[in-house]
């Protein structure tokens, strides 16, 4: 897979996680999915991308 395709796939995965966490199953599952999103952001960062500075702000109001 080339870099551009990988970046696009990672973006789709983040959108999917955001959808799943829109209605959290439990605090435990919400946190796990948030961390999965954080690592996807990290992967995009390692590929030279960055949309927002930190994904943590998407969950402002609580850790």
């Amino acid at each position, binding site marked *: 897979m080339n870099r551009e395709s990988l970046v696009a796939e990672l973006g789709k995965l983040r959108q999917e996680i955001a959808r799943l966490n829109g209605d959290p199953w439990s605090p435990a599952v919400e946190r796990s999915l948030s961390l999965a999103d954080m690592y996807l952001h990290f992967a995009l*960062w390692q590929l*030279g991308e*960055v949309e927002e*500075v*930190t*994904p*943590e702000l998407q969950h*402002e109001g609580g850790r």
Partner: protein
Amino acid sequence: MGLSPFSQKSLASKYWNEYTETMPREALDAIHLKRIRKMLAYAYERVPFYRQLYDKAGFKPEDIRSLDDFNRIVPTIDKKDLVEAQQVNPPWGNAVALPEDFCLYRFQTSGSTGVPLAIPFSYYSSHHYGEQWVYGFWAVGIRPQDSFYFAFNWGSFAGFWSAYWGVRRLGATVYSGGGLNTEMRLKQIVELKPTVLLSTPTYALAMGEKAKEMGMDLTKTSIQWTYHAGEPGGNVLTTRRAIEEAWGAKAYELYGVAEIGAIAPGCPLQTGVHLAEDQAYATVVNPETGTPVGEGEVGENVVTSYIQFSQPIIKYRTHDLVRLVKKRCECGRSWILFEGGVLGRTDHMINLKGTNVYPTAVEALLGDVRGLTSHYEIHVARGRSGDELTVKVEAQPDNPAERYGELKRQAEQLLYERIMARIAVEIQAPGTLPRYELKAKRFFDHRQH
């Protein structure tokens, strides 16, 4: 090979992230500009300290359209600015970007140059901070099947905590040397068989001394690499050689600044440290004028971090003196090299009758005198005709006191020939100077007293 968290393809890679580590300069600079603009907007929006600073300077983040704009227009900040911001409204003042709930770690600087600076890290920042270490580990061949011994007491010193985050990220094993004295740590190393020692360079040497007292031969232990931070030494040739001889291992160094990150892991060729350019931007400037110095010249490192999300660091004066090399390194990395690591501090630079003297240069030369050790102190005082420098250095144990006069003569002559300045040397008996587990206090400035 057994199970591994990495594929065979990844394990065979000589780079942790070849894409960024070998990226051409133009592409790296494009990423720098993109990330700088993001950080400027982030800081301006969320951090009153930066908003006030930039408003006063008369620009908005969107005015910065090139690296040249950034270098010319954006003002530098200093540690004292952040300390003052924190003192107004402790613990974080008006220099943080994230609500307190996101500041999961709280460290602080040692306070060796003034009031300690409180340092927050968010969870995500801690991952990035650890990542910088992994670049260095991977480059020298350390892999997940290796194991790290932390000769460190897990206090509020961010440096080795971040190394721990790196080891966790790499997926290697952690052995904690917390709460133990040197003798107990040495026994643990024999028992647990770690392959990597993490410590300050001076503590690695102190462990070597203790091992000799105990009749232990460290070259027979499982340690294959020693990795250092916290102070210069791992890139000072004579100190590195002393560590490598004591441990029978390869010694490397990472250059970090607690409030910024582990910004520059060691070059595998041991020529210096490479700035992790996907995570930070650096300019090297004349400390007095603030203008950039030419390639190969020594200047002060001014750093912008892309990974300090809690307390953003933008154009931060580190006061560390470095020599910038931009050409692609023989190790393959395009990331800039700070040749020889950190060469000294702007506040430790001494001018002896027109000659700039750096403590690390003195340290390197002392190691060339057979019979002297790496345990030394530098004292600077105001004399009648300017600054005067005295170096106290311990002799090796196998030197009788009658030889001290000859050692003094040799050391003073070598320092004069190489530095072209008169430096007094006082030879000390073995074990008379203090030993340190973390940063060694080497520099004593008596000029203000």
